């Protein structure tokens, strides 16, 4: 593109102004990256969840427990291929500030249910050998420096040991990784058989909720209804939803973060649109005699339009890409809050949104000045200078 030097040179005409414009676009796109990461963090990875998993909980709330015996009955239901259960432990590691989710699970079944949790085969075997063993996700392991073989005491808050104590002690037998950027690797999971054996007698045989894998996601509503009907009018009535809907309901309890972020983003975008639109408009106005000279030399109106658009594209694309790249890098360093946002990454689809914003910004800020330059009448513009 032989006109590129002309375009770039023109941008450097007023260096300070161009630099300030670039900086504001740059900062705006870093902000965009962070907002996108925060948005997906509050989405709890909903978008990554498979469509073929259902969650079955007590009809009243997640806190109410369900009998362990439902497992066999659920496995027998047509269309359900695999079942496991899970119990919220909600304990404290040393200090209540150290928050990470602890779950009581069936080791093999749990990792089979969640293939996106990647646990090396030999670590799973080591865990199966040790009833007091636990497995922890990479994020939490890194945060607290857990290594395989470490002994980790967790104090129960509402669970008690049969012997009256409240502190369970576990040995780390494995560390799992996430299959994707957004996979939750903050969980600390340990064995149900050990837990059930050691907890107070009154609670034995009760679990938190069930996860069901179904053969055909299309049949999810039908199977959910069938299962709930099966347990209706029993002491433990159930409510079954897809895992997606379950998580979304959970995320919505935090508040409509998405709407707030969208509003912030719109304000930011509007501001940089004004900044760079003003830069372009001013720069074109100052150079009207130069555009007239170019036209005198034979540059067509259309070419002049393209040159001005080229300037606004160069500005937006350079500053915007630099901002996105910087955001990507900073976000890849991990959760800035030190634990509040465990799933913190730059969602790739938001990169596409960012790129469209860059193009939109270039178009909107450049179009009107470009049309103005295109329409400029040579004789008038030369006379005015």
């Amino acid at each position, binding site marked *: 593109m*032989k*006109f590129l*030097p*002309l375009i770039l*040179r*023109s941008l*450097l*005409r007023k260096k300070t102004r161009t630099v300030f414009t670039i900086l504001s676009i740059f900062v705006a796109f870093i902000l965009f990256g962070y907002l996108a990461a925060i948005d997906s963090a509050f989405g709890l990875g909903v978008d990554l969840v498979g469509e073929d998993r259902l969650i079955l909980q007590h009809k009243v709330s997640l806190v109410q427990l369900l009998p362990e015996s439902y497992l066999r009955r659920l496995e027998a239901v047509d269309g359900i291929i695999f079942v496991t259960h899970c119990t919220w432990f909600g304990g404290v590691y040393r200090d209540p500030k150290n928050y990470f989710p602890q779950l009581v699970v069936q080791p093999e079944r749990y990792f089979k249910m969640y293939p996106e949790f990647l646990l090396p085969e030999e670590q799973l075997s080591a865990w199966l050998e040790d009833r007091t063993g636990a497995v922890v996700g990479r994020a939490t392991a890194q945060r607290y420096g857990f290594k395989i073989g470490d002994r980790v005491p967790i104090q129960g808050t509402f669970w008690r040991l049969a012997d009256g104590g409240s502190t369970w002690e576990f040995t780390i037998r494995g560390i799992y990784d996430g299959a994707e950027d957004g996979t939750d690797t903050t969980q600390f999971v340990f064995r149900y058989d050990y837990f059930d054996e050691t907890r107070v007698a009154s609670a034995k045989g009760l679990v938190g909720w069930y996860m069901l894998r179904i053969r055909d996601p299309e049949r999810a509503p039908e199977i959910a209804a069938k299962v709930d009907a099966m347990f209706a009018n029993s002491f433990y009535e159930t409510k079954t939803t897809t895992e997606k809907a379950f998580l979304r309901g959970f995320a919505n309890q935090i508040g409509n973060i998405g709407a707030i972020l969208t509003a912030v983003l719109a304000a930011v975008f509007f501001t940089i649109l004004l900044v760079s639109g003003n830069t372009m408009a001013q720069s074109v106005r100052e150079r009207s*005699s*130069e555009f007239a*000279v*170019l*036209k*005198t*030399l*034979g*540059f*067509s*109106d*259309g*070419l002049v339009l393209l040159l001005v658009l080229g300037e606004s594209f160069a500005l937006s694309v350079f500053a915007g890409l630099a901002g996105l790249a910087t955001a990507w890098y900073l976000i890849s360093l991990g959760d800035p809050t030190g634990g509040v946002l465990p799933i913190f990454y730059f969602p790739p689809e938001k990169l596409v949104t960012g790129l469209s914003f860059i193009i939109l910004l270039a178009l909107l800020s450049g179009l009107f000045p470009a049309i103005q330059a295109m329409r400029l*009448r*040579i*004789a008038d513009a*030369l*006379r005015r*200078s």
Partner: protein
Amino acid sequence: MNDALVQVREVHKVYHRGSERIDVLDGLSLEVPEGEFLALMGPSGSGKTTLLNLIGGLDTPSAGEIVVGRSSLGTLSSASLASWRAGHVGFIFQFYNLLPVLSAEANVELPLLLTRLGRSDRRQRVATALEIVGLSDRAKHYPRQLSGGQEQRVGIARALVTDPTLLLCDEPTGDLDRVSAEEILDLLEELSREHGKTIIMVTHDPAAAARASRVLHLDKGRLSRESGT
């Protein structure tokens, strides 16, 4: 059949300023044969720039016809007028009108960006044009690093680089001191004599006009021959 390079026939140019009507050119006719060096004189506001703009296709007459070479300008669209200018006319301005952000050679190269010439051909042409105006050693300089006379020579090189037949100069020495002005006039004379360019030069300066092969006066919208006033 008339074979003058530039033919201006019965041209009118009217401007409206509010309710006021200004007849700048009032049925003006002019013929400029190929190779002529013509000087146009006249008081300020008499319409010299207007006429030059019309001949260069920068503006359109209110009535009348302008033919340059084989092109009747009134029949061309704005896009084809632009490409016609690129190939046939070179403009030289009183205030040089160089792009301040480009070096001398990049300024001279501008008209060539519109051609199909490759990079090395363009460089070659730019070097030749700068050599003709005697500024080969200032190629990398920016306009603000040049004197007025040097800037004007870059302006002339830019007008020359596409090798147009017609050069239109609007008070090319109007902003220069005597010595620089003489140098520019020497250069224009050389372009006329040795390179066969047809030149129409607007000027206030009788000494400048004296260099031309013919001098015309523009007054009250019409032309008259130089009468030695």
